[in-house]
C-alpha cells in the first residue's frame, strides 16, 4: 500500500528529471514520459481506490515513517500517511492531472518550451501527490512550497508576456504571505508538541500539550497557509491573475488540485481546530464565497469568471470545514475538482478555437473575451454539451455531482447555525445561499454569452472549429464524472449522497480537541442535521433555479436591458467590475504605505537633519564673519596656534591609522602580549 503510494508520487518526479535533462531530445519532446508517468500513477491510484472501496472501512489508516534528521534529542521523521481521504485525493489528483496532461498535447502543441511545460507539470504532480501522502506537517510544508514554486513557474510559463510574469510574481508573493502564517503555526505546533507528525500532533492535542489560545492561534496560523494557497479573502488576489498561465495549468493547478491543497490542509488539520478557529475559518470561507461570486457576475474574461467562481467555491469548502461539515467540505472538493477542471478545460477549448480563428483572420484581440463569442454551440457541440453539464453541476442542479456536495455544505452550515447559541451564525447559510444564487446566475450568463445567442463577431464565428480529440475526450470523461451516480453509489438517490460510499468512508476524523476537552467542538444532533439538510436542499434548488432563470431572462430572452441594469446597479456594478478595488486598496495601503514611510524618512533626513546642519553652518558663517571683524592680531594668533596644535595632533594620530593590516596586527599582538603578561605575572 505505502509503497504504491510512494511510487505514485515518485513516478512524476522521475518524469520531471528525464524531461528537464533530456526532454528536448526525446521523440515528441518527451511528452509521453510525463503522460506515461501520471497515467500509470492514475492506474496505481485506481488500484488503491478499488481496494479502499472493497475494504469499505471508514477508520482505515496506514502510516509508515523513518527518521530523516536525527539531532539527538530532536528528530524529524518522514513518513507516509494513507487513509481514505488521502487515497481519494490521490485519485482526484491523478485523474485530473492525467486528463490535463493529455489535453495539453493538443493545447500546447508547437510551443517552443513544450518539453519544459511537461517537466513542470510532472514536477507539480509529484509535489502535489507528495503533499497528499506525507504524514507530517514538515513534509507537507516542503511540498506546499514546491507546489507554490510550480505554480509560479507555470503561471509565468509565457514569461515573455509582462502580464504573465507579473502574475507569477504576484502569486508567489501573495502565497508567501500566507506561508508565513503556516510557518509560524508550524513553529507553534513543533514547539509545543515536538513533532511534525500528524499522529503525534493528534496525540499531543488530545493530551493537552497544546490547548487554549495557543491551539486556536496555531489553527488560525496554519489556516493562513490555506488562505494563501486556496485564495481566500484577503489573499485571493493572485488567483484571477494566475489565469495568465496556460489554460491546462489553470484547470489543473488553479481549479482542481493546488488551490484545493489549502482545503485539504484544513481537512487534515481538522482534528486540531478549536471552535474559535473553526468559526474564524468558516467566516473567512463564507465571506470569500459571496465576495468572489459577486465579482464573477460582471467579469468578461471567460477564465476570470471561472477563476472567481473557483475562489467562491473554495470559500464554500472552507466554510463547510469551518462549520464542522468535514465530509461535505471534502466532498465538494472532489466534485468541484471534476467539474471545475472540466470548465477550465472547456473554456480552454473555446479559447483554443478562438485563438486559431483570430490567428487565421489575423485579428489581434483577446480570445478570452466572452463579448466576442456567442452561438458557439453549433460549432463546438461536444464542448458545449460538456460545458453545460459542468455548469449544471456547479450551479447545484439535481442529478449532478455539484448538487450533492453543495447541498451537503449548505445543510452543514445550516445545522451549524442551528446548533450554535449565537443567532449571528445564521449569516453563514445566508452567505452560502446568496453565493449559490449568484453562482447559478453567472455560470449561466457565461454559458449563454458563449454558446447561445447571436454570434458577436461573425468573422470569428465562421472560423470556429471543434477542438481535436485529445481535448474533447478529457472533457467528456470529466463530464461523465460530474454525474451524481458516481458519488451516491451504492445508493442511487440523486438527491442525497447520505448513503453513498463517500459519506460513509470520509467520515469526519475524531477531533483531538474534543478528546482533550471532553465535549465535542461542534455538537450537531442527528435530527438537526437531517432536518437542515432537507431544508437546505429545497432552498438550494429554488435558489439555483432562480439564478438560472434570471440569467436566462437577462441574457437569453433579454427581458431586461443589461445596460440599464448596470446603470441601475451603479455602485455595486462598479465595485464588482473592479473586483471591489482590492488590488487598488493593496496598492494604496501596503505599497503606498511602505513608500510613504520611506518618504517620511527621507523627508526627515532632508528637512530636519539637513536643516540642523544648515543652521549650524549658518551660525558658523555668521560667527566667523563676526570674528573677522574682530581684532585680527589677537584672535588670529590664538586661532592659528590652536589650529596648528590640532593639526599636529591629528597628524600624529593619523600615523596610527595606516590602513595596513600589519600595523594592526602589530598593535593587536602587543595588546595581547600586555594583557597576557598582566594576567600571568
Amino acid at each position: 500500500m505505502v509503497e504504491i503510494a510512494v511510487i505514485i508520487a515518485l513516478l512524476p518526479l522521475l518524469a520531471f528529471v528525464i524531461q528537464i535533462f533530456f526532454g528536448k531530445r526525446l521523440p515528441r519532446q518527451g511528452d509521453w514520459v510525463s503522460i506515461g508517468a501520471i497515467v500509470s500513477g492514475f492506474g496505481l491510484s485506481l488500484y488503491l481506490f478499488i481496494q479502499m472501496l472493497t475494504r469499505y472501512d471508514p477508520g482505515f489508516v496506514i502510516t509508515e515513517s523513518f527518521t530523516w534528521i536525527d539531532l539527538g534529542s530532536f528528530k524529524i521523521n518522514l513518513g507516509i500517511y494513507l487513509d481514505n481521504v488521502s487515497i481519494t485525493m490521490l485519485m482526484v489528483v491523478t485523474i485530473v492531472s492525467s486528463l490535463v496532461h493529455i489535453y495539453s498535447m493538443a493545447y500546447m502543441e508547437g510551443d517552443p518550451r513544450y518539453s519544459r511545460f511537461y517537466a513542470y507539470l510532472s514536477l507539480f504532480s509529484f509535489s502535489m501527490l507528495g503533499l497528499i501522502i506525507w504524514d507530517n506537517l514538515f513534509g507537507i510544508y516542503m511540498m506546499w512550497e514546491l507546489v507554490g514554486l510550480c505554480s509560479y513557474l507555470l503561471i509565468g510559463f509565457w514569461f515573455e508576456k509582462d502580464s504573465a510574469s507579473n502574475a507569477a510574481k504576484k502569486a508567489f508573493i501573495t502565497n508567501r504571505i500566507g506561508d508565513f502564517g503556516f510557518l509560524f503555526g508550524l513553529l507553534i505546533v513543533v514547539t509545543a508538541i515536538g513533532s511534525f507528525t500528524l499522529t503525534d500532533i493528534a496525540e499531543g492535542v488530545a493530551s493537552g500539550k497544546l490547548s487554549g489560545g495557543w491551539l486556536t492561534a496555531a489553527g488560525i496560523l496554519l489556516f493562513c497557509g490555506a488562505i494563501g494557497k486556496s485564495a481566500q479573502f484577503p489573499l485571493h488576489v493572485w488567483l484571477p491573475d494566475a489565469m495568465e498561465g496556460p489554460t491546462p495549468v489553470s484547470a489543473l493547478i488553479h481549479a482542481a488540485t493546488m488551490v484545493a491543497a489549502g482545503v485539504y490542509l484544513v481537512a487534515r488539520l481538522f482534528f486540531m481546530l478549536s471552535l474559535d478557529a473553526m468559526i474564524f475559518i468558516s467566516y473567512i470561507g463564507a465571506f470569500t464565497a459571496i465576495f468572489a461570486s459577486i465579482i464573477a457576475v460582471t467579469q468578461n474574461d471567460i477564465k476570470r469568471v471561472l477563476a472567481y467562481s473557483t475562489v467562491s467555491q473554495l470559500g464554500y469548502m472552507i466554510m463547510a470545514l469551518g462549520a464542522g461539515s468535514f465530509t461535505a467540505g471534502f466532498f465538494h472538493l472532489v466534485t468541484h475538482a471534476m467539474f471545475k477542471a472540466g470548465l477550465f478545460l472547456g473554456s480552454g477549448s473555446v479559447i483554443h478555437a478562438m485563438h486559431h480563428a483570430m490567428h487565421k483572420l489575423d485579428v489581434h484581440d483577446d480570445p478570452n473575451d466572452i463579448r466576442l463569442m456567442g452561438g458557439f454551440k453549433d460549432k463546438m457541440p461536444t464542448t458545449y454539451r460538456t460545458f453545460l453539464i459542468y455548469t449544471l453541476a456547479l450551479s447545484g442542479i439535481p442529478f449532478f455531482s455539484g448538487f450533492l456536495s453543495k447541498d451537503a455544505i449548505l445543510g452543514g452550515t445550516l445545522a451549524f447555525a442551528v446548533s450554535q447559541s449565537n443567532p449571528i451564525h445564521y449569516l453563514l447559510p445566508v452567505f452560502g445561499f446568496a453565493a449559490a444564487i449568484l453562482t447559478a446566475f453567472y455560470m449561466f450568463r457565461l454559458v449563454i454569452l458563449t454558446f447561445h445567442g447571436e454570434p458577436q463577431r461573425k468573422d470569428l464565428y465562421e472560423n470556429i472549429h471543434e477542438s481535436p480529440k485529445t481535448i474533447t475526450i478529457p472533457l467528456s470523461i470529466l463530464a461523465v464524472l460530474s454525474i451524481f451516480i458516481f458519488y451516491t453509489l451504492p445508493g442511487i438517490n440523486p438527491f442525497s449522497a447520505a448513503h453513498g460510499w463517500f459519506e460513509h468512508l470520509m467520515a469526519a476524523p475524531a477531533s483531538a480537541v474534543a478528546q482533550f476537552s471532553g465535549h465535542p467542538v461542534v455538537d450537531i444532533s442527528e435530527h438537526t442535521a437531517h432536518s437542515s439538510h432537507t431544508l437546505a436542499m429545497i432552498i438550494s434548488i429554488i435558489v439555483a433555479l432562480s439564478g438560472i432563470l434570471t440569467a436566462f431572462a437577462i441574457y437569453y430572452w433579454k427581458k431586461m436591458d443589461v445596460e440599464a441594469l448596470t446603470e441601475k446597479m451603479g455602485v455595486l456594478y462598479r465595485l464588482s467590475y473592479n473586483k471591489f478595488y482590492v488590488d487598488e486598496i493593496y496598492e494604496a495601503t501596503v505599497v503606498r504605505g511602505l513608500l510613504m514611510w520611506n518618504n517620511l524618512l527621507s523627508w526627515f533626513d532632508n528637512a530636519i537633519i539637513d536643516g540642523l546642519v544648515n543652521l549650524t553652518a549658518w551660525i558658523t558663517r555668521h560667527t566667523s564673519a563676526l570674528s573677522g571683524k574682530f581684532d585680527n592680531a589677537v584672535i588670529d594668533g590664538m586661532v592659528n596656534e590652536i589650529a596648528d596644535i590640532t593639526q599636529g595632533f591629528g597628524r600624529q594620530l593619523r600615523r596610527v591609522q595606516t590602513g595596513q593590516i600589519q600595523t594592526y596586527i602589530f598593535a593587536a599582538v602587543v595588546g595581547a602580549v600586555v594583557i597576557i603578561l598582566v594576567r600571568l605575572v
Partner: protein
Amino acid sequence: MEATEILFLIIAAITVISAAIVAFSNKIIYAAFSLLLTLFGFAALYVYLSADFIAVSQVMIYVGGILILILFGVLMTQRIYDVSVKSERNPVLPTLLTAIGSAVVLGLIIFKTPWRQVADSGYAPITERIGQAIMGDFLLPFEIASILLLAALIGSVFIARAEEKK
C-alpha cells in the same frame, strides 16, 4: 640518546630553521620552497606524535594543495623576467617588538604552566577512530567545514576570474 631522538632533533631543527627562512628570506620563492620543508617537518613531528593520518593529510593538503596554490600565487604575481624576486620588508622595530613580546609570553606560558601530563600511550592506529569521530560526534562541524570549502571554492573562483571587459 636514542636514534629516534636524534632523528627528532634533526627534524625539529629542519622545521624551525626552514620556518626561519620563510620569515627572513628576501626571495619570496625561497620562502615558498622552504615552507615546503617546514610543512614536511611538521608532518614528521606529527608522526612522532602518533598522528600518522594527520601527517599524511598534512603532506597531501598542505604540500599537495596549499603550497602549490602559494607557488601559483608567487608565480602569477611576479613579472617573470628574472628569477630573483625580492620581497621588501617593513620597518624592523615593530617586528622585533612583536617577536620578543610573543616570545616572552609564550616562554612564560610554556615554562610556568604546570602541565597535566599523561604517560605516553605509544603508537596506535588512529585513522579508523578519526573516521568514526568525524562521522559521529563531529558530524556537524564536518558538514560545516565541507560547506565552508565549497563556499571558499566558489568564492575564490568568483574573485579570481577575469572580469569581462564592458
